[in-house]
């Protein structure tokens, strides 16, 4: 039965040399098919002496098992190779641009406005807006700004008729809030557009945005203003910021202060942004004037509180290093795309 060994050598070599799955399949038919060489051996069984039949049968089965194992091994090998070749051929250029979802940007004024609103919402404030065309009662009279004050002249404010004008400050909202809430406590911020008779240039705009804060309660002293503004300065300009109060004057607050924040660019050492002083003037504030409370219907002996007014353009210009206030209103796409996130 020398042909067993010969056959084995023959199919071992054949399977081993198969170059692709088609060849391998053809070999499977040749050796393992119903009419294949191994099946042909089984047909010789009838010629084998009876006592040798079991041994012969076993040998044929062993041969078949060996052939099947060799075939499976080769098949796996060839399949794996074919997959590798396919994957290699599917390689793409990783440097071509991806499909980026398009995403617009908030105007930086709204970026700052939203950041400020959220900051004060976190402290329990409500956000109150008001009309842009206001009665001069709320814009001036209630804010303790006397009739003959220059701001109340056509030359400085945008009057529509003797009693109505485009609000010159968001204080106009606060005065309305005071009247509506008296005698209850208040904790609000009031954002909005305001208008002045100014010629537009790099640092002036006839239209700009403010956000004012107002807190009224039984005991809300000036020191509470300092703590609140310290919180604001650190949130907006960094944890290391300090604030400084300087005496000032506003008709609707007493005492009145200008508030400086230690320079976020140089950390207070002095640089062009802070003009070498280490401090940047950022807002005006104070304890609400007793007359203002009284006019709105509060008893200034029983309550007090503070108010502050922040220029949104000023904060945005300082925070982002913007050099011209007109940028906010031209909405050049190349300008707006700088402001692609809150930071």
């Amino acid at each position, binding site marked *: 039965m020398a042909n067993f060994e010969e056959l084995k050598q023959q199919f071992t070599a054949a399977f081993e040399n198969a170059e692709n799955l088609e060849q391998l399949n053809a070999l499977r038919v040749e050796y393992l098919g119903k009419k294949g060489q191994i099946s042909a051996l089984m047909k010789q069984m009838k010629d084998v002496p009876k006592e040798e039949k079991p041994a012969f049968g076993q040998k044929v089965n062993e041969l078949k098992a060996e052939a099947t194992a060799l075939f499976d091994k080769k098949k796996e090998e060839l399949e794996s190779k074919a997959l590798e070749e396919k994957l290699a051929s599917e390689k793409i250029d990783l440097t*071509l*641009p991806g499909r980026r*979802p*398009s995403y*617009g*940007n*908030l*105007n930086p*004024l709204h970026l700052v406005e939203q950041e400020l*609103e959220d900051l*004060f919402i976190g*402290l*329990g*404030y*409500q*956000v109150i*807006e008001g*009309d*842009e065309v206001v009665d001069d009662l709320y814009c001036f009279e209630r804010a303790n700004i006397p009739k003959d004050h220059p701001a109340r002249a*056509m030359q400085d404010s*945008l*009057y*529509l008729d003797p009693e109505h004008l485009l609000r010159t400050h968001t204080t106009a909202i606060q005065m309305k809030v005071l009247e509506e809430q008296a005698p209850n*406590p208040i*904790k609000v911020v009031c954002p909005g*557009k305001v208008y002045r*008779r100014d*010629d537009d240039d790099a640092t002036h705009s*006839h*239209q700009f945005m403010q956000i004012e804060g107002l*807190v009224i*309660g039984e005991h*809300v*002293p*000036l*020191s*509470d203003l*300092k*703590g*609140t503004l*310290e919180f604001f300065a650190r949130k907006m300009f960094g944890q290391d910021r300090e604030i400084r*109060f*300087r*005496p*000032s004057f506003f008709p609707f607050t007493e*005492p*009145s*202060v200008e508030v400086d924040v230690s320079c976020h660019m140089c950390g207070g050492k002095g640089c062009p942004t802070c003009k070498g002083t280490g401090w940047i003037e950022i807002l005006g504030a104070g*304890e609400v*004037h*007793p007359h203002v409370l009284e006019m709105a219907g509060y008893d200034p002996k029983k309550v*007090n509180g503070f108010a502050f007014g922040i220029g949104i353009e000023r904060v945005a210009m300082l925070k982002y290093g913007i050099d011209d206030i007109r940028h*906010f*209103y*031209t*909405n*050049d*796409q*190349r300008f*707006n795309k700088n402001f692609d996130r809150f930071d």
Partner: protein
Amino acid sequence: MKLSRKWLEQYMDLSGLDMNDVASAVTDAGFEVEEILPMSSGTNLVIGEVLTCVDHPDSDHLHLTTVDTGDGIRQIVCGAPNVAAGQKVIVALPGAKLPGGEIRSGSIRGQQSDGMICSLAELGVDKHSLTEEQLAGIEVLPADAPVGNTDPRGYLGLNDVVLDISLTPNRADCQAVWNMAAETAAILKRPAEFPEYEGAGNAGNDKETDLVISSTTEKCPSFLGKIIGSITIKESPKWMKELLRASGVHSINNVVDISNIVMLETGQPMHFYDLDALPASELICKDGLECEYTALDGITYSIQPEDLIITSAGKPVGIAGIMGGDDSKIEENTTRLLIEVATFDHVSIRNTARRLALNTEASVRYQRGIEPLAAKKALDRAVDLLIRYADAKDIEKTVVYGTDGYIPRTITCTLAEINGRLGTDFVLDEVMDVFKRLSLEPELDGDLITVHVPSTRQDLEGMADLSEEVIRMIGYDRLPSTLPLMEMTEGKLNPQQKQRRFIRTMLLENGLQDAVTYTLVSQAKNDNAILGRGNALELPVPLSEERRFIRRSILPSLLETLSYNLSRGNKNVSLFEISELTSDQGVDKHLAIVLNGNLESVRWLNQTLPTDFYTIKGLIEEMLIRLGIGENRIYFKENKTDTRHFHPGRSAEVYIGKDLIGITGEIHPLYAKENGIRQAVMAEIDLDKVLGTKKSKVRFSPVSKYPAVSRDLAFVVKKDVPAGKIVDVIKRSGKLDKEAVVRSVEVFDVYEGEHVADDEKSIALNMTFQSDRHTLDDAMITKVFNDIIDAIQKQCKAVLRSA
């Protein structure tokens, strides 16, 4: 106001302090020093005498001089045209540091030069205070100037330092040097002494006068006049000239200078007339005149009835509180003087000064406000100085019209109130010390502190004002930092604010830029208002033609922004703006959208999201649905409202139920051209209506357990049959045992062209059927499907193409 070291040193000892110290102390107390200005500067200077002066051999304008500088004789090349032998001059020696740089020995065109002969401008003296002669050449000192003196700046009185202080409106009292000096002394905690002059104005009160002083207008409530029968005009004393110079005032002669120095000291403007040049011994303040009038400056002004005028015998002799007349000004030969000290309404002065563009030292002071007792102080001080420096004699009785109306005031408060307002824990001694330093003469009675407010401090009205005095004098560095302790409040946005933020976020996420444009617009933009309500509010005095009306619509501004961007090469510009609008009908909030180019684009993949009607429609629908407005309440109907700005066939009115909430679609080609753009789709939406409409609540609806079945249909219909109608018919007719089993309808193809008649189109739709009650078997589906086909064929005159 300007405050110099020499002024301050008249009243207090400043030893140990330089002007930087003073500046930072007063700034911290509320008087912001804007600039510290030395009147001159320069080191290594000496007074010299020009011994010889000849032309430089190699120059047509330089001179060659020898100068005695006390320590020797040096050769100096000098370019000044006025240099001459025998002059006493200021010499900057080699090594001198001047504002323009350092002086060195050297050779100028071959001639040795050891120093520089200086002009005052070269020493940094304010050019405005110099004459043309002084500006053109070197400073020639008096003949008796001491050669070798190494402090020529001191010799000339130019060694002063001036603080330029910005005053807050409540501290107009500090326009007066005396008041500012007293304040400075209080801040520096140094004692101060002021000149004794009180009562000097009583001189001559025993002598009768025929002078008439009066006013016919309530805008001049009080008026003092006094005749000085004899004065001598001469040069002012040196101290007076120096102080005037430090305040930026030219010295003219002793009498004029006295009126100026008293104004600086007391803050009260006054006017001196040459009595002999007046038509009568009479001054009456009037308004209601209309005339031409030539003032001191030689300019003729047109006087209007609202202006206050000083008249004498009916003839104008001065614009009250602003400027006197040319005819009656003090001249070299003046011998008899009439003093005017009056109170004028500050608004009237402001209006006149503004209209005449005439801001004088006097008018500025009147506009800011003058303390009630200043007039009397000024008269006393003027008479005092006139007696001492102008040989004033034959002084007549003061004539008084009106009263100063001054009522002294006290304020009572407690330490607890002050600490309570500030959040501080100052002790009584500190607070009392502040009040004493400020001359408030505090008295203590138990807990009660009573202060006596001086006439100069009209700004102090109550405890709040006193609390400010305390904190600014003690210093804001002592203010603690605390947070309000109040009942908990909920920090929040109201529902409308939240929804507005949502809309912003959604539009940003879809690639639109958030814009902010101006509220004030031109006539043209107002005329092009889209969905604008009522009539525009117009500024009676507009900022400019571009800024005349309050806008009623955002789109015209947004289109301008689009055009601005496109003209600068920006592509694919899509913008939105949410803004408040105001008209004579009230306040509205609108949302405007402008889309241009592609909303999304990956060019190498040839994939874009174009900006056409369907893009903006989808955006609006999605926005409304996500705000909680049911899809079945949103309609896009043919635009009959505005076809001037929109393409009539490619725009729609947007409705929520029966409410028109906006217009959207392609821009009309003509309007696009007006805006300088080629293509855009846009929308103007009334946000108040959107946000105000009823919103559905978010609710779970059960997911059907039964399988869904999908079917396609295609019809041929007339071109003018809207796809929406077919979809509606399918939804309405797709029912089985009254259950709406059509769960979705999607148009997936619209075809016009070959194989379809010219006036027809083919529409293909996909439907999903599902029941919540049972599995839909073939028979059921077929029944529903056939019902739908029947309904479409009947209601839309459609021909079934495939099913």
